[in-house]
């Protein structure tokens, strides 16, 4: 590889790997949402990226509000913004399911088109309200700066923060899915919708809440995203393809798979980006993923049981 020595390459890989951690966080949050929606209802939500954007703008709005009305509390705006981003995205997702998606469950292609259209509409609404140019809020001071890991290696606080949020949300989702009543409803409905209904579960309500939760997670991804980059109307749409890749590679049925897959894809892109262009890095990742899917169509991780 060019004129680099082995130790230089190792340092570069470490640097890029650390830079890829925030990407990992965003991928993970996005993929979690997309995967639980896909796993539950077989719906691919093409507007999923716009829920990230929605969360980003919500965070921006909260930051601006704090700046003008409570400047003394500015450093605490982030927790509020995360909760609010989640709630806004959850609410819009809930309405989207109720108003549109639930009527199309038996028509996957129509769902794809309809949610894609909703995504475009949302982008236009963002553009009308916030303009086409990027907006960004100052990060609170505790998110600025970085931690020095070694002479050459720095880990920015915001990247660390994004990754922590993503992992915390993954743990919460795992607890919800495997320990809470909601998760039992989701898992039984996913497995056998008719039977779940016939044992007494309101599967339509489970669908609605699951869809909304998936959107809410994308909202949190949006909140995290503001610490990485400025928010534009198409900010989320750029992540849609990557998010699909993560879900497909990880296998929609497995949380662990989603984590591993988000990590690998984020790292691969970030590290490759140093040596080749960003778009070439994407192409290469895509090709590797396609190769893996051809060998393991069910994704890297699956549950094994009889029946």
């Amino acid at each position, binding site marked *: 590889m060019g004129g680099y020595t082995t130790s230089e390459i190792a340092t570069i890989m470490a640097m890029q790997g650390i830079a890829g951690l925030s990407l990992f966080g965003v991928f993970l949050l996005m993929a979690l949402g997309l995967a639980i929606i896909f796993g539950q209802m077989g719906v691919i939500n093409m507007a999923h990226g716009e829920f990230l954007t929605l969360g980003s703008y919500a965070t921006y709005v909260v930051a601006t509000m704090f700046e003008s009305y409570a400047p003394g509390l500015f450093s605490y705006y982030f927790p509020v913004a995360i909760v609010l981003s989640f709630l806004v995205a959850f609410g819009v997702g809930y309405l989207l399911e109720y108003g549109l998606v639930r009527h199309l469950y038996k028509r996957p292609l129509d769902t794809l088109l309809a949610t894609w259209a909703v995504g475009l509409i949302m982008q236009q609404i963002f553009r009308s309200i916030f303009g086409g140019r990027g907006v960004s809020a100052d990060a609170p001071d505790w998110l600025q700066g970085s931690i020095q890991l070694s002479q050459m290696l720095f880990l920015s606080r915001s990247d660390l923060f994004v990754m922590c949020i993503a992992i915390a949300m993954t743990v919460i989702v795992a607890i919800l899915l495997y320990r809470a009543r909601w998760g039992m409803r989701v898992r*039984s409905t996913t497995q056998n919708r008719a039977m779940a209904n016939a044992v*007494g579960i309101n599967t339509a309500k489970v669908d609605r809440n699951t869809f909304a939760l998936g959107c809410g997670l994308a909202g949190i991804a949006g909140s995290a995203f503001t610490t990485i980059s400025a928010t534009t109307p198409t900010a989320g749409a750029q992540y849609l393809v990557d998010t699909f890749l993560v879900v497909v590679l990880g296998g929609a049925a497995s949380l662990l798979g989603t984590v591993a897959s988000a990590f690998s894809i984020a790292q691969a892109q970030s590290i490759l980006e140093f040596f080749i262009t960003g778009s070439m890095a994407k192409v290469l990742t895509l090709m590797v993923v396609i190769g893996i899917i051809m060998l393991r169509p069910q994704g890297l991780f699956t549950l094994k049981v009889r029946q």
Partner: protein
Amino acid sequence: MLKVNDLSIGYGLSQVVHDINLELGKGEILGVMGRNGMGKTTLFKALIGLLPSWSGDIQMGGVELTGERPYRRVASGLAYVPQGRQVFATLTVEENIRTGLEATGQKKIPDDIYSLFPVLQEMRKRRAGNLSGGQQQQLAIARALAAEPDVLLLDEPTEGIQPSIIKDMAKTLREIRQVRNISILFSEQVLSFAMDVSDRVLVMDRGKLVDEMQGEELSEATMAKYLSV
């Protein structure tokens, strides 16, 4: 308890079940006997709401169920054990039973369930998909009972279960009636099982109820023309 009037059901354009009338008394165990393909499963699916009925109506304790979605019917006191059991394979035994609690909103699994099916208590942390067929059948019944139903629907409970265990199943059904004081409607092809448990039997032939017998009238001789192939 359960009252069905002039119920007709079909798939697409072809009618499969014709003008069913039946009434299930409180605490009664009623069997629907019929050979393969006579429409038993179709009838049971329509009762729980998994298939729309073409005409006629279904009532539970005077409450109209026709057109209601399945989970609403479960909340009204109907519980369903499908043919082929259909337990949730990746859920544990205990979780499977808990899905039945959704209908009542209860938090605790009723005490009598594990005393009726001790084997399920032993296996409560196992995945349901790893249970034997007979154990899965018990689990499917336990899951239905968790909803505290007034009427239990069992579609061919003995299918794929070995004769010695069929005896136990009959005993369990009588025990369930005794403990819970509920009514049971089941479909069946195995005559000995029906003779063992039912107070009364209806005979289904090509989608119609064609005969009715009290439990004691049931014998190889009286059923010969309906069940022999």
